């Protein structure tokens, strides 16, 4: 509180440092990857390898908001599964694919809205328990609807969403959509009063409420957005896979949260930004690419991602606790 005046300045400094660190890491990993594979340093190689990863990117953008307000959403992976299954089923029931895509979006937004409604309507019901229950309920519904079957055979234009390029250029279509979303989220978070309110909620929710931030309404919007982005992710993921099953996107919640935290978002709220998160997304993709080159199995990748997540959260805490101790000593 004492450092109020210099707070924004200091925070900006930290953010800058963190993002430069990410850039350095990205360069370092790129060099290692380049050594491992001669095909790494090619425009199409980099673009395509990023593009197949971007469905997680959509979820990371909105998860950033959820983490900044100091909450968490572990139901996103299940929302992806339910949206995907409902989209596939409505297509199988004879709806046109375009309408089925709208169904996926509506499902995602609906699930997110439900999360937000419960969290803001029942005081004392934490986001952890709501989204934990939600992750079981949403995927559970997907299982009830589809059992252990899979639905495929979508129209051919649908696979364009994940695999196609814009016009005659070789820019992947997903990339364009993602960059658009990232810009919207970046502007929303960093250039609007609404975005400042998001940070205010994360830094001090009580103070935010007393200064007139509509906490319940904000939470409602942010969780709905998170569900909507999961719906978008479901559309691209299903397009990439070519079929829909209830067990798709298992474990995505860990990776999405890990990317956001790696990007400088603090899970206790109030810190982080879209630029850092986008850099972390690239970093995570390159890390996975490199691990894939040296034949690291998927399960081991999850171990490494878990260690990265814990490490990134833990290291600053350990250092700051030392700094804190020193400061209290000085005061004494």
């Amino acid at each position, binding site marked *: 509180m004492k450092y109020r005046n210099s707070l924004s300045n200091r925070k900006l400094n930290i953010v800058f440092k963190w993002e430069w660190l990410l850039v350095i890491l990205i360069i370092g990993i790129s060099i290692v990857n380049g050594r491992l594979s001669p095909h790494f340093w090619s425009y199409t190689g980099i673009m395509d390898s990023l593009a197949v990863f971007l469905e997680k990117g959509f979820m990371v953008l909105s998860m950033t908001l959820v983490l900044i307000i100091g909450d968490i959403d572990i139901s996103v992976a299940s929302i992806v599964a339910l949206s995907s299954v409902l989209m596939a089923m409505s297509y199988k029931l004879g709806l046109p694919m375009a309408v089925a895509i709208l169904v996926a979006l509506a499902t995602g937004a609906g699930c997110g809205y439900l999360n937000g409604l419960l969290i803001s309507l029942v005081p*004392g019901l934490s986001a952890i*328990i*709501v989204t*934990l229950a939600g992750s079981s309920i949403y995927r*559970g519904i997907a*299982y009830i609807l589809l059992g252990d079957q899979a639905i495929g055979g979508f129209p051919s234009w649908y696979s364009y969403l994940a695999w196609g390029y814009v016009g005659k250029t070789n820019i992947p279509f997903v990339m364009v959509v993602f960059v658009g979303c990232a810009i919207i989220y970046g502007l929303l978070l960093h250039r609007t009063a609404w975005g400042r309110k998001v940070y205010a909620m994360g830094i001090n929710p009580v103070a935010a409420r007393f200064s007139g931030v509509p906490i319940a309404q904000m939470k409602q919007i942010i969780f709905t957005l998170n569900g909507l982005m999961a719906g978008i992710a479901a559309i691209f993921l299903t397009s990439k896979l070519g079929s829909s099953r209830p067990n798709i996107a298992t*474990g995505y919640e860990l990776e999405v949260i890990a990317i956001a935290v790696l990007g400088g978002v603090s899970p206790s709220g109030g810190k982080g930004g879209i630029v850092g998160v986008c850099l972390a997304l690239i970093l995570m993709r390159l890390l996975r690419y490199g691990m894939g080159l040296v034949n690291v199995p998927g399960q*081991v990748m999850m*171990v490494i991602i*878990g260690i990265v997540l814990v490490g990134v959260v833990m290291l600053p805490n350990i250092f700051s606790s030392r700094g804190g101790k020193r400061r209290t000593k000085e005061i004494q």
Partner: protein
Amino acid sequence: MMDEPAKTKREVTFSRLLGFRELGIIIFIVLISVLIGIRNPRFLTWSNFHDILIDTAALSVLSVGMMLVLVTGGIDLSMESVLALTGMVAGMMVKQNPQLSPLFMLILGLLLGGLLGSITGLIVAKGRVVPIIATLSMMYIYRGITFIISGGKWINAYEMPDSFKGIATERFLGLSKLIYIVLVVYVVFYYFVNYTHTGRKIYAVGSNVEAARVIGINTEFITWLVYAISGALSGLAGVMWVARYASAQNDTASGFVMTIVAACVLGGVSITGGVGTVSGVLLGSITVGIINNALPMIRVSPFWKMALQGLIILVAAIVNIAIARNMEKSQLKRRTI
């Protein structure tokens, strides 16, 4: 939290209402048993009841560990992976050395699980990582390690000695040995939670961390301890699980953490910390066990289980909050008079 002076009085009503709550669960168990019994009479036989108890054994051991973590205001998602990893290690050990005694394996499970849990505990207590992030990561890390050490292979029933499988199949006085393990765990933890200083400190930390620190409780140690205990109990449950199902797989108990949380929340444990009883958790586990056992009996597809469990967690959590709030209201009323 707001009305400190009314604390003692509030605690009295707390315990009374929790007693009331446990009565509620018992009535619910009886009611649901009768309803299912009407649809399928086989449900109400002794052998089926015994089956339910055996199937619930691992769950009820796990719920005690989860309860302690929840009481401190945390959550331990990594329990299912500690269970799988310990189970896999135990399975691989008895495969190579069939002469190992079952008792040794159970103790080994406790120790190995305790070690894994204390790593998680250190990350939460010393590293000050939010419990949900720390345990979510550890869930995937331990699951991955299970995959690495097993090389993706299963340990099958024929590779395990009969003495090891005997943990679940052998009976003593008509009851499976698993049930005795559960009894021992519950007696130990009933005593630990209610009659030891350390046990009471767990509640103090969960009710108000700051106050607990001010009165001289080593909150970091208590936080570490609950994760170490939940790890140890997960390890024990891992050995029980592998002996019961006579196979150790890479995806053993995958997603089981939902069931554990459901049992705890049903048993009246508050997610925000400070509230929860050992007896409530036992009843919660049995209720979940009954529901899981009853679903196939009334011909509900097993695919319903997942969604149903999520729904149970949600409804039970809301009921817990409603009870707590009603209690606070009646408290305030009494004070104005």
